[in-house]
């Protein structure tokens, strides 16, 4: 019975994992890049100046611009450049709704904090687009994408749990990796990658599901608030209720000094600890200003100081969290996003994400490695299904990184004035990825179908694509040097770590792919030497038999 249970868990792990593996690989890789979303944003918009005005001037500049853009608004939001996530001053506004019950027009801008004018940069999806793809995918209706991502994440959670069940020697083999042993090595590697970062894998998958809990389980809200949009709205209004917020008075009133409120906030929390200003009903008698603090721990909620926007009086000093369930949710979401992480912890997050990505990749490869001896023995060559999985594996494991590199290339090479520039950056990513998936299928379609050529072709496709990825990544610093002046020769001496870090990282990734290509080439050479030797000895044996 016990063996039967393990076997059925193994079945679920294998086939469930295979079914959604490619989507999960995409989610893990783009999500991992999300830990450096802002840094990628900055690399992709090299024109953006580095902000260095004082906080008071910054807030004044923001207010000045908001007065111009949206004097009669429902809400203003100011993000001064006080943390990694906000490298430039950003303002957001929402106008009054045109009709009762509707939603007002929204707008946002990145400002120069000295001139209070919007800064212009090339149109680019930046790191945000890459990051958003990991939960919203692309080209798909948003709700469909959320559900697809949810189903895949659920499969991931199932794969993790079944994986723990079927890994019999999880403690005994904790330190075991046996290289150069074919399938054994792949399994060892898959186990090692899964086990050493198991807490991360569980946390990231589970908290990922929590993000969309209200989408995936609407009936729980509906049971108390009623079905439909009205119930949903009532629930969210209550959940995100702000105690001190009032309805609009519709009596114009001048705002109290924001800089004075900022001063009080900095006195309360310390310098640089202010994350945002959220102003409701600006220039109205019922104006309220909420100032939020930085996120310094996994709890993804800011402490808040609430001011009367007209008198400037401090009304409340709110703790980041008010209820335990809410704190649990905020902590899970905070752990997932890692906004609180400083440079070292951020790299560890990034690295853990890569481990998850590699765990999925090794699992997918293991599926083919396990089946290839039997598949290659077949007279007509491997089944279509097997070849499809092999192609999708290569096309995704090496192909998606190629696509991402091409996305960065497009950012530098597409004409700055191009109308649909940002959209085309993303199109190039998916076109390159598609090409990388079709390439191995084409290669095996064009050429012979026997088993041994099949293996060789598969290796050839891996080698070609690895070289392509190596070139695509390693040349990015060169492209950057040809198109901007923030290249390594400038960024390193200037200590411009966002640019230097990006260039050095892609260079390292390029070298890794080149190493992979060289390794694979060496292996093919060894194999063909062995095959030749085997060939010769069979021929030799055959002649011997004929001899009397």
């Amino acid at each position: 019975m016990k063996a039967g249970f393990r076997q059925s868990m193994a079945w679920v792990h294998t086939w469930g994992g295979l079914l959604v593996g490619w989507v999960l690989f995409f989610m893990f890789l783009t999500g991992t890049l999300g830990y450096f979303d802002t840094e990628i944003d900055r690399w992709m918009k090299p024109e953006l100046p580095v902000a260095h005005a004082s906080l008071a001037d910054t807030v004044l500049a923001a207010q000045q611009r908001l007065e111009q853009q949206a004097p009669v608004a429902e809400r203003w939001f100011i993000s001064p450049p006080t943390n990694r996530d906000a490298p430039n001053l950003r303002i957001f506004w929402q106008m009054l709704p045109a009709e009762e019950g509707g939603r007002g027009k929204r707008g946002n801008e990145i400002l120069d904090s000295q001139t209070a004018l919007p800064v212009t940069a090339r149109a680019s999806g930046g790191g945000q687009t890459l990051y958003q793809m990991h939960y919203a995918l692309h080209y798909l209706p948003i709700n469909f994408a959320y559900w697809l991502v949810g189903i895949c994440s659920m499969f991931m959670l199932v794969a993790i749990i079944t994986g723990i069940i079927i890994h019999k020697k999880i403690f005994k083999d904790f330190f075991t990796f046996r290289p150069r042993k074919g399938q054994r090595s792949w399994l060892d590697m898959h186990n090692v990658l899964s086990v050493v970062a198991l807490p991360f894998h569980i946390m990231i998958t589970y908290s990922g599901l929590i993000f969309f809990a209200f989408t995936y389980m609407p009936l729980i809200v509906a049971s108390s608030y009623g079905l439909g949009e009205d119930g949903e709205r009532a629930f969210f209004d209550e959940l995100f209720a702000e105690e001190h917020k009032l309805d609009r008075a519709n009596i114009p009133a001048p705002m109290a000094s924001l800089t004075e409120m900022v001063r009080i906030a900095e006195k309360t929390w310390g310098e640089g600890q202010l994350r945002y200003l959220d102003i409701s009903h600006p220039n109205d008698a019922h104006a309220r200003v909420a100032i939020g603090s930085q996120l310094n721990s996994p709890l993804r909620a800011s402490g808040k100081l609430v001011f009367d926007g007209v008198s400037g009086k401090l009304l409340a000093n709110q703790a980041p969290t008010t209820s335990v369930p809410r704190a649990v949710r905020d902590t899970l979401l905070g752990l997932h996003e890692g906004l609180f992480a400083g440079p070292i912890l951020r790299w560890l997050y990034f690295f853990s994400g890569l481990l998850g990505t590699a765990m999925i990749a090794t699992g997918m490869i293991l599926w083919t490695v396990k089946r290839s001896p039997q598949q290659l023995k077949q007279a007509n060559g491997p089944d279509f299904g097997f070849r499809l999985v092999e192609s999708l594996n290569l096309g995704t494991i090496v192909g998606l990184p190629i696509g991402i590199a091409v996305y960065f290339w497009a950012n530098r090479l597409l004409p700055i004035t191009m109308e649909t520039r940002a959209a085309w950056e993303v199109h190039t990513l998916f076109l390159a990825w598609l090409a990388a998936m079709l390439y191995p299928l084409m290669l095996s379609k064009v050429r012979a179908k026997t088993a041994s050529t099949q293996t060789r072709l598969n290796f050839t496709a891996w080698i070609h694509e690895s070289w392509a990825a190596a070139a695509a990544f390693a040349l990015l610093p060169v492209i950057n040097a040809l198109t901007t002046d923030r290249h390594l020769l400038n960024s390193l001496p200037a200590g411009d770590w966002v640019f230097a870090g990006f260039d050095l990282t892609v260079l390292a990734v390029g070298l890794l792919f080149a190493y992979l290509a060289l390794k694979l080439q060496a292996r093919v050479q060894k194999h063909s030497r062995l095959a030749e030797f085997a060939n010769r000895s069979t021929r030799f044996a055959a002649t011997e038999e004929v001899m009397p």
Partner: protein
Amino acid sequence: MMLLAFAFLYSGFTSICLAKSRHWQQVFPAQTLMVAAPIRKALQITGWLQLLLGAACCVQAQGFATGSVLLWGLVSTAALLLIMLLPYAPRFAAGFAVAAPPLSALVNVAL
């Protein structure tokens, strides 16, 4: 402090690892015998103590909330480094475990 945490974690994993005969032989191939029981016990205890020290350093460096997240990140990195070194450079893997904590303590004092 984080460097020291990493050193303790790496060293702790190595001790626990060496308490297993398979890995003991990897590092000391000349001694074909199993690792002796008292040594094994000592290695296990030292290992777990070092892991605890590593955890303490993380909390010391970043507080409990952020420190515990940091701890898991360093645990993954330290364990993976050891596992990848073992088959290719077993002696170095073990030597590094001995040298890492005092070296990083020195760095910690120097900085």
